[in-house]
């Protein structure tokens, strides 16, 4: 049984309107279709990458799978349990098993709380240890994530740490109550380049040691390739393609995936090449294109693409694509 199953997930955000507009305007509110029919499965122990540009819906999807945002439609099943059919208190307890690692190490730590207290928060509310044991556990966590000497770091404040150190704190906090599932939202995007490898390796080490299942959200294909064994490519709230990392990179099926791979700057001047880059930019999620959302920019667009929404098809074992070039 897969660890995480996401089925036809949808999340629409109504556009904020002022009190006056709500009272006096006749037209109904518009919706941002952040997630518009997303389905995929994640096995236990996977490092599953959600890759996409802005507006792709990857962050919202990640938050929904961690139980932090309620979907407008669709099902999320974690280890056999449909998490959004749980009662509020049950969901709260279930959330012990799922934690989030945030993108910006500075704003994800309370500036008025010491590092030790911050790491201890999940233990405080969701843990079983008595408060006396808590401190020992936090010290151990600090050592596990490489913040030594732990006693000294315990009493410090976030602004006294470097970006990489803060991110380690965020990771320590996330694993403190022994979750099974971690959603890491752009964990290295805001960390210095020379420090990124440290953080990526830390996550992978934790994954191995604690047998975590990780959902890695990133726009950086190189990071995804390094860390993930499976990747899903998202665009404007939909999954374009997903499968094993090797398959995706060796044989990218979807024109959008191919465009992404071409567009990524390669740190090797010998590999300079003529690039075929799609024109235009990502349309607004308020008004996505009809049919296949990528069709206005697709170099291989067919007539069908502006009318029919392509469904996810299993092209080869474990490799899925939603594109009319690959019909059922």
């Amino acid at each position, binding site marked *: 049984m897969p660890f995480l199953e996401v089925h036809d997930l949808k999340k629409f955000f109504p556009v904020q309107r002022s*009190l006056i507009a*709500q009272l006096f305007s006749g037209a109904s509110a518009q919706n941002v279709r952040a997630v518009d029919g997303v389905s995929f499965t994640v096995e236990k122990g996977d490092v599953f990458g959600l890759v996409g540009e802005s507006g792709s819906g990857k962050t919202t999807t990640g938050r929904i799978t*961690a139980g*932090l945002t309620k979907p407008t439609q669709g099902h999320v099943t974690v280890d056999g349990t449909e998490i959004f059919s749980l009662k509020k208190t049950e969901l*709260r307890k279930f*959330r*012990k098993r799922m*934690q*989030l690692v*945030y*993108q*910006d190490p500075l*704003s*994800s*730590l*309370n*500036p*008025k*709380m010491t590092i030790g207290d911050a790491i201890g*928060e*999940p233990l*405080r*509310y*969701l843990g079983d240890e008595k408060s006396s044991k808590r401190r020992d556990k936090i010290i151990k966590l600090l050592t596990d994530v490489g*913040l*030594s000497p732990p006693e*000294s*770091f315990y009493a*410090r*404040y976030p*602004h*006294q*740490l*470097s970006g990489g*150190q803060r991110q380690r704190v*965020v990771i320590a*906090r996330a694993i403190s109550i022994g979750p099974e599932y971690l959603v890491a939202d752009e964990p290295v995007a805001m960390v210095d380049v020379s420090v990124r490898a440290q953080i990526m390796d830390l996550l992978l080490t934790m994954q191995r040691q604690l047998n975590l299942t990780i959902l890695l959200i990133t726009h950086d294909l190189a990071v995804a390739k390094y860390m993930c064994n499976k990747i899903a490519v998202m665009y404007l709230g939909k999954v374009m393609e997903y499968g094993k990392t090797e398959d995706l990179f060796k044989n990218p099926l979807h024109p959008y995936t191919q465009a992404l791979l071409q567009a990524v700057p390669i740190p090797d001047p010998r590999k300079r090449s003529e690039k075929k880059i799609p024109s235009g930019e990502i349309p607004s999620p308020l008004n996505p294109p009809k049919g296949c959302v990528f069709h206005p920019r697709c170099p291989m667009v067919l007539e069908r693409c502006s009318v029919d929404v392509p469904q996810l098809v299993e092209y080869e074992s474990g490799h899925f694509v939603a594109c009319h070039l690959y019909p059922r």
Partner: protein
Amino acid sequence: MNTPQKTRQKPQTVSVMAKLVSPLFGKGYGRALMLAGICMTLFVTGMSVLAPIISPHDPTLIGLGPPNDPPSAQFPMGTDQYGRDMLSRIIWGGRFVLLVAVTAVAICLTIGVPIGLASAYAGGNVDRAIALIMDSVYAFPSLVLAIMIISVFGVSIINDALAIAVVFIPSYFRIVRSQVLSIKEMPYVDAGKSAGAGTPAVLLRYIWPNVISSVIVVATVNFADSILTTAGLDFIGLGLPVNLPDWGIDLTYGRQVLPLGVWWTIVFSGLMILISALGFSLVSEGYAERTNPKLR
């Protein structure tokens, strides 16, 4: 070895005074200012509390000396237009003014802040409605509103304090609300929630500590303003019972007699108001900055 990055930050509120004083004290100016503030506050409070003991004369006795007499050996701060001893008036003048000011600030803190926190955190249309009401009160000229309230409820310390509080609660509300609205969207609040913190814990440990410093700023302004508002009320006869000495009243009368060359009334009463307001500001700002971990 990991050395901590010391981010040396300038204190958030660098008042003009600090800029003037810093050449004298260098890095220690923050401490020096807070110390000064504490001294001033203690001085003013002590003087007010010990007034019955240290005051040389009865401040309400008229005709003790010639009216508008300049400072002399007998009356070190001169006399006012009724021949009352200015020194005694100054010593006594703080008691009720400070009491009213402190009570007003206390009422504002206990009412304005929780409403701001709850409303902003809850959000939605309820929050917007309350904000609308608060904005309407805020738009009222403060003195007019205070006068209205006192005319209805009568004159007393608690009523004065209440009138001032009503006028100032919207300021507390607005500052708290604007802070909470931005803080509640921060990832660390989200992290607290996903760590399992319930609403009370989120408000108490995540939101409030990051709101305190701005509340203190408002409280500072509030305090100084209430002293002046009380003076204004006194002038119309709607403040303290006429008999009691009050720096504010002396300040107002002092303005009238200044063209006559009578400087001591306005100067000493003005000085006392300045010292109390300043002392309170420095203490509260110093406190706010000490609780701001960025300066350790």
